[in-house]
């Protein structure tokens, strides 16, 4: 694997001042493992703790029919839409942008699908149309961000409202149900012969695709380059505008897909489908080690974060905690996930200083500053 992407989610700090040791001693698969080891190991540890806690609460927490267990399976299925969107959100955050409009695209895609279905158009035709709608929406975001240089936060805040409005305009206050069972089986059914939900399979497949492209191809390399230094990337011949726009388009398509999954899982669409999801999507990415400031992140981290979230939700549910309080726990976890590595670093700096025998109000060189 080719990215030395440091999976630590805390603010960037160049390794120069800290002893002048090269921060990246190797490249390739070992490097990815080594670098992500720090954060992902922690995540795995959290996951393990949660599973252990869950088991303590109830022996039914995880059963041999792992994916089908009433709790974990339900949790996992419920998070697949946000999980899928988190995969597409990750490269966008890595390039320094963000896409807040995904939850509204979920609503819009569901609305369009519902309207088409209600008009008698078979889903085999409707679904591709909806995916195109998603792509168009994403391209619109991309255009505003790259052509006019508007901040992604502001643009997608606007399209968050705009696409929701479109969903309202398309569907109004009505709702559509009774999708064909072949499709709804995809939404809440399992791969025949296994206990794996279809949606989980879809997520894992997508995760593999994203991971391969982001970490093993030069497209991914360019994504990281844009995130670390947009101007240098452009000067180096990277098609910055094109790539950023493409990422938004992908996010749009993926959000539309998530909207379809949601519609099929609930077997109903309303114009407010997906409301409130975007925060969870961003949260999964950050929890997964993606640096909100751009330039760093891994897909394996995001996948782990999805499972951690699902485990947390099911452990809490088993413990009788209502979904509202679950959100509190998620919020706390989010903040802790950013603070912990930062505190760890501060602690290390403090230890270094004490060990060197001095305790002065010394200011370390600013990251990137040449030390003379």
């Amino acid at each position, binding site marked *: 694997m080719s990215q030395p992407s440091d999976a630590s989610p805390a603010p960037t700090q160049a390794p120069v001042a800290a002893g002048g040791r090269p921060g990246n001693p190797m490249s390739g698969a070992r490097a990815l493992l080594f670098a992500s080891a720090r954060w992902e190991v922690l995540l795995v540890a959290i996951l393990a703790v949660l599973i252990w806690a869950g088991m303590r609460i109830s022996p039914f927490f995880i059963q041999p029919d792992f994916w089908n267990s009433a709790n974990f399976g339900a949790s996992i299925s419920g998070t697949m839409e946000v999980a899928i969107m988190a995969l597409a959100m990750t490269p966008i955050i890595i390039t320094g942008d*963000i896409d807040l409009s995904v939850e509204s695209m979920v609503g819009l895609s569901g609305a369009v699908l519902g309207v088409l279905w209600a008009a008698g158009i078979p889903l085999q035709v409707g679904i591709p149309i909806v995916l195109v709608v998603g792509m168009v929406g994403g391209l619109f975001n991309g255009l505003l961000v790259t052509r006019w240089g508007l901040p992604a936060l502001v643009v997608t805040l606007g399209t*968050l409202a705009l696409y929701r*409005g479109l969903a*309202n305009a398309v569907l109004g206050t009505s709702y559509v149900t009774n999708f064909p069972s072949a499709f709804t089986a995809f939404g809440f059914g399992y791969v025949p012969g296994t206990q794996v939900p279809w949606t989980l399979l879809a997520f894992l497949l997508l995760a593999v695709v994203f991971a391969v492209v982001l970490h093993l191809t030069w497209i991914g390399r360019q994504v990281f380059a844009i995130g670390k230094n947009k101007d240098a990337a452009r000067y180096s011949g990277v098609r910055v505008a094109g790539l950023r726009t493409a990422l938004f388009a992908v996010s749009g398509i993926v959000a539309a897909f998530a909207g379809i999954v949601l519609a099929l899982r609930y077997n109903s669409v309303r114009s407010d489908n997906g409301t409130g999801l975007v925060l969870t999507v*961003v949260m999964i990415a950050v929890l997964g080690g993606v640096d909100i400031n751009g330039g760093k992140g891994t897909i394996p981290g995001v996948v782990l974060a999805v499972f951690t979230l699902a485990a947390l939700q099911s452990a809490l549910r088993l413990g009788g905690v209502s979904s509202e309080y679950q959100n*509190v726990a998620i*919020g*706390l976890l*989010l903040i802790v996930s950013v603070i912990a590595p930062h505190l760890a670093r501060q602690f290390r700096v403090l230890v270094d200083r004490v060990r060197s025998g001095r305790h002065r109000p010394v200011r370390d060189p600013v990251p990137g500053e040449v030390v003379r």
Partner: protein
Amino acid sequence: MAGNVAVASNERSRAGALIGGLARSRELTLAGVIVVLSAIVAVRAPNFLSTDNLGPVTTFAAIIAIAAVGEALVILTKNIDLSVESTIGVVAFTVGLILKEQALPVPVAWACGVGLGLALGMCNGVIVAVLRVPSIVATLGTLSIFRGLCFVVANGHEINLNDLPDGYTNAASQDFFGVPLFVFLAIAIVGVAAIVLRYTVVGRLFYAVGSNAEAAATIGVRSRLTVFLAFALSGMLAGVAGVLWGINYGAIYANSASGQSLAVIAGVVVGGVSIAGGSGTVVGAALGALFLGLINNALILLGAPQEWLQLIYGAVILFAVSTDALIQLRTQRARARSRIR
């Protein structure tokens, strides 16, 4: 030859003054648009300008505007506060609960509400300024945590009108010479904030920190303290908004004010406060909140189909922020061309 160069720099700084002028006139532009818009709508729907209509509309806009002042402070420092809706909700509910239990006199309950807002804002401040969590992540987390707090306080119940003292909600419909009480309050708060931001050393620090945090640190400006202060004040003003929310609606639920963060931020951005920090005014933010509230109302009165409201609302926000950036782009290009060669 030195004279020529000085002349060159003067021309460039005149371009700079032009930029400054344009920025200042954002508020005027917005005010003008509001007036023109109101006139147009009034022609088609004469009851738009009636006190029966404008009263509740501007009252609600005033609540959002007050929260927008706090949000503007945060955005000026190059941060963002997504948790404002949860603060409003939890404060509204807590005040309602205090009054329901008749534990404290009304003014004291209000003070508690504002105090709670301040405390929540300080939590945000600690997480962002002390623990150095990026504000978008931090307030994403506190958005959930504070809302959870609201649910804890609510414990499955809600606040009804009967729980509150008689005539509690009358204050919301109180007006002087046709102008609602809440609007006066909002104007007062905006006025104080504007004066502090423009005429005090402390106020200018918000701009400095947002414009160039590194330079501020070199000057010896306590950037982190300033950011902390911004969040604390934002929380406090959200607390005020929460108290007013409770007075306005009477009935409060555990998820009250859900979704208002977008309305507040949209108002601030439409009002000309740059998301990149360092520029914009609270007057603009308040006008932005008012503008969006009026648009919403105008659409309803003009008979726009229910379904189209959200759509137009979103389009307006997008349009407002786009024109902002496009103007900046154009002036930058003009300036580049005016350079003497």
